[in-house]
């Protein structure tokens, strides 16, 4: 029977490269990603291997999915999992530098622009809800807690928007230096 191991770990949306690097290190230790849900990774024990992991963010509708995954398959990338429109790909990389699913800065930046689009949409929705909510005359503890959670979500989303924007400018800066 193959050994499995569960690891709980959280990464923010602007940290997908760090997440991929971690999955590569796990594979080097013989732990290969099998499935994941939010914050919980299931690994399968096996031979240590040099494996490149890469994440893409894309909403796919209907037939797009097959076309998209087919392209990655043709290029030798295996789709391991999909979670909230994040697609996890991997490819064995026995020698040399790790391959990437993106080959230029423009397309790398486009990925974070797609992430940014959805973050801004959710943030705007939350702000509207928070701002238009009418407080009842009698403020109950439960209401207070919900409002605080909403405010927390707005702050977190705001940070995510700023960090994603910072990541985009860093990518562009690095490209100019190359």
């Amino acid at each position, binding site marked *: 029977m193959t050994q499995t191991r569960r690891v709980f770990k959280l990464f923010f949306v602007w940290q997908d490269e760090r997440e991929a690097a971690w999955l590569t290190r796990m594979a080097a230790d013989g732990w290969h990603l099998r499935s994941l849900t939010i914050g919980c990774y299931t690994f399968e024990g096996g031979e240590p291997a040099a494996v490149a992991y*890469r994440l893409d963010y894309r909403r796919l509708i209907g037939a797009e999915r097959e076309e998209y995954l087919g*392209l990655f398959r043709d290029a030798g990338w295996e789709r391991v999992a999909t979670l909230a429109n994040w697609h996890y790909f991997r490819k064995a990389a026995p020698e040399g530098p790790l391959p990437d699913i993106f080959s230029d800065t423009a397309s790398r930046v486009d990925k974070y622009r797609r992430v940014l689009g959805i973050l801004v949409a959710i943030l705007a929705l939350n702000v509207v809800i928070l701002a238009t909510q009418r407080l009842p005359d009698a403020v109950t503890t439960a209401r207070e807690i919900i409002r605080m959670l909403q405010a927390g979500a707005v702050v977190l989303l705001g940070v995510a928007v700023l960090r994603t924007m910072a990541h985009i400018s860093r990518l562009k800066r690095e490209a100019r230096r190359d």
Partner: protein
Amino acid sequence: MDEIEVKALEYLPLTESTFAILVALAEPRHGYGIMQAVAQADGGGIRLGPGTLYGALTKLLEGGLIARAGDSNAGDERRKLYVLTPLGRRVVRLESERLDRMARLGRLVITQWEEDDDADPARV
């Protein structure tokens, strides 16, 4: 300037990948066929990642620079084919002309430097 040229000019300048993809689609190809074509020395010598290619294809289809051209049934897998549209052809033509002008500009000063070097070999 006709309408199609105005529209085509909006896409300039192209990234190197996008330009190579458009040139490869002078004839109908599927995604993998594009990757192979642009990887060859006379196709640009570009290693195209699938994420980059998919993003480019989506944008080019939306803009009407390329169109779907049915399916290819070679082997056991069915793959979608793409091909340049008249607008896509115009974009390739205009971008090639633009790059030509830029290259000529560069060669002009390079020739000048070489002549200067011939006159004064001590200068680099």
